[in-house]
């Protein structure tokens, strides 16, 4: 694998290297840069569609070895964020599905389960009474004479 081109300048305490955005998206470069904000002064330049120049200037005194280490750590952090970006991209549909189902399940029951009367063909006509619950109490009971006869027998 080809290493990114770089220039180390211990005199200025900085290391400059170039990253192809085809391999390292700007989003990942920003995230890695953010991690190094407390250790180095970071300056970005270049063309986000082709190549980005990263300049890390150490906040502490640094020799060539330390600057090389700084660059190496930055590239490691970059790989870490590349993986995160990739995973986020791959899981996007699953995350959207989970969020959507969570939103639907958090709706009040009346809203999520109440069928639309206009579209529900299985609801039938409201005048039908398949369970016989529309019958009045008097109609449902036996006639009073029959009840009296039964009482006398007892």
């Amino acid at each position, binding site marked *: 694998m080809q290493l990114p081109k770089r220039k180390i300048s211990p005199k200025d305490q900085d290391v400059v290297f170039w990253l192809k955005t085809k391999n390292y998206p700007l989003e990942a470069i920003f995230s890695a840069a953010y991690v190094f904000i407390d250790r180095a002064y*970071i300056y970005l330049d270049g063309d986000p569609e082709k190549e980005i120049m990263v300049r890390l200037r150490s906040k502490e005194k640094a020799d060539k070895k330390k600057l090389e280490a700084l660059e190496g750590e930055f590239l490691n952090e970059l790989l870490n964020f590349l993986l995160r970006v990739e995973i986020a991209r791959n899981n996007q549909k699953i995350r959207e599905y989970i969020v959507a189902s969570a939103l639907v399940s958090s709706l009040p029951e009346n809203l999520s389960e109440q069928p639309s009367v206009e579209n529900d063909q299985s609801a039938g006509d409201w005048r039908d009474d398949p369970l016989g619950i529309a019958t009045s109490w008097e109609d449902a009971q036996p006639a009073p004479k029959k009840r009296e006869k039964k009482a006398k027998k007892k």
Partner: protein
Amino acid sequence: MVKLNRKIYVREAIEQAIKDYKGLAGFRLSEKGKYYLISIKPKENGTQDVIEREFCNYILSLEKGM
């Protein structure tokens, strides 16, 4: 003078950083070609370099949240 690439740095973040650094220095923001040009005049002598560099870091941190 700080030169920031317009394709990388967001003007909104630069303006916010200028507001936040107002107490430390005077700023003038302009555009030339593909760069934003920011001239910085610190209120204290000897702080030019540090303010310029910290200012750039601060803009990056603001952009991360945008």
